[in-house]
């Protein structure tokens, strides 16, 4: 393609770190667009991106979160189309971007499926993954979509609750729209204006969702459920204490739903949860949420 520069949007910073790593490996220039608020609450990943040689552009427009990072990346791309490739991180945007993201993320379910079959001899009863734009979830679902006996459950961010104004629950509260190059579901006003959303998790703080998730929901193949900040933080603490895993706050939404679902299942059933990211980046913010200042 002859491109020498990569740009990407990032919420939690995981995709930004991945893009910065690729750019460092291939000797390319990288600029990562990240909402200013997210650069604050995910400082550790900002530092990691900069260590890898990327420029982090703190986006100061709109809600200063993931949606605005996508806008800024689009705007930058129109100006630098000659030398730049936009490495979209989430399963969003115009065709073929969601398809490409699914293809690369589907390594998650390809490996998980193989390992489950070789370890247990059967498929899981349910697969649970967090959804913002929906990249890790579509990757976790991909190789199970054709197995109707596997329940697919996407967990979206309910923030302070789906009945408050502070949530990012696109499936529960959104409606059909056309934005960021895709016809999908968005949290929006009656007038078609995209509404500000909120979640403690920078990676799930997005007013839309990848179109394939909407298709999966519409044909009854996947279910989407909301989890609040409080439930996710409790899951963060639970998985740390019981498993010794510091999980990303995004993934903790999936874990929180797993903790709700597990007691309803039989002991020999298998529940697969995608822990999509590590939570080092969230430790300071969660301590703060619990009223502890650890001077990050």
């Amino acid at each position, binding site marked *: 393609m002859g491109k020498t520069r990569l740009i990407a949007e990032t919420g939690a910073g995981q995709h930004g770190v991945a893009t910065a790593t690729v750019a460092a490996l291939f000797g390319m220039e990288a600029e990562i667009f990240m909402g200013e608020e997210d650069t604050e609450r995910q400082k550790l990943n900002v530092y990691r991106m900069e260590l890898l040689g990327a420029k982090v552009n703190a986006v100061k427009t709109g809600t200063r979160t993931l949606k605005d990072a996508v806008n800024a990346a689009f705007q930058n791309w129109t100006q630098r189309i000659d030398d730049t490739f936009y490495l979209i991180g989430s399963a969003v945007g115009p065709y073929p971007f969601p398809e490409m993201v699914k293809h690369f993320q589907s390594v998650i379910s390809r490996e998980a499926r193989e390992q489950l079959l070789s370890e247990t001899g059967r498929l899981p009863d349910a697969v649970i993954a967090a959804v913002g734009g929906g990249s890790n979830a579509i990757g976790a679902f991909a190789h199970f979509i054709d197995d109707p006996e596997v329940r697919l459950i996407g967990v979206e961010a309910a923030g302070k609750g789906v009945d408050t104004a502070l949530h990012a629950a696109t499936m529960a509260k959104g409606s059909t729209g056309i934005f960021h190059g895709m016809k999908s579901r968005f949290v929006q006003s009656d007038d*078609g204006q995209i509404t500000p959303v909120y979640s403690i998790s920078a990676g799930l703080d997005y007013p839309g969702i990848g179109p394939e998730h909407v298709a999966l929901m519409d044909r009854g193949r996947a279910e989407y459920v909301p989890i609040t900040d409080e439930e996710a933080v409790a899951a963060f603490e639970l998985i740390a204490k019981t498993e010794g895993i510091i999980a990303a706050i995004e993934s903790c939404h999936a874990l929180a739903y797993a903790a709700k679902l597990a007691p309803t299942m039989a002991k020999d059933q298998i529940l697969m949860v995608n822990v999509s990211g590590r939570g080092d980046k969230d430790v300071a913010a969660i301590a703060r949420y619990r009223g502890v200042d650890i001077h990050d």
Partner: protein
Amino acid sequence: MAESGADLVEVGIPFSDPVADGPVIMAGDLRAFEAGSTTVKIFEMLRRVRQRTNVPIVLLTYINPVFKFGYDAFFKEMAQTEIQGIIVPDVPLEEQGDLQKAADQYQRDLIQLIAPTSMARLPKLVENASGFLYVVSSLGTTGQRADFNNERLQDEIKQIRRVTHLPIAIGFGIHTPEQVAKLAPLADGIIIGSGVVDVIAQHGTSAPQYLREYATALKAGLHDV
């Protein structure tokens, strides 16, 4: 503005996330929301404007407000308000099927944008185009620019003229009478967006007087040609 020489007026329906626009129009959208702007209110305003002027008017907005309003209802409103056309920068030609159908039904123009990156699709872009062609001066978003690659623009416009007789207007970044004078010989029209929004931002409710002066100055740039 019409009285001061604008041959066509572009009215923006603000959008929460105007990705094709630069900081001046983004800020204008925010001011409009603070003032309570909605699609319905803009059509009401246009009805009042229509009682005072017959200047051709086109809308500029993003697809989601139009989609939510309903394509049929939206173009019907446009026809009733005698709004001739609409520019929707976030829908490429290949995805315009339903929009074009509604535009055709109410005989409104869906204005095609031709960017420096569009040249390979030129024959397809002009095939069903109507109204005028909006030639994007340079890469990037809207907003005031210092200078332009006139040679490249001249070459692009020559290619466009070969495949269509539609009028050509150049926009994106043009905001001074000097720039108008330089670019006008290349095209049939010059589009000023951020420049106008900037005047409104600076002068608020007393803007009409300054807009009149601005439009007159730009028009003078045209006559110097």
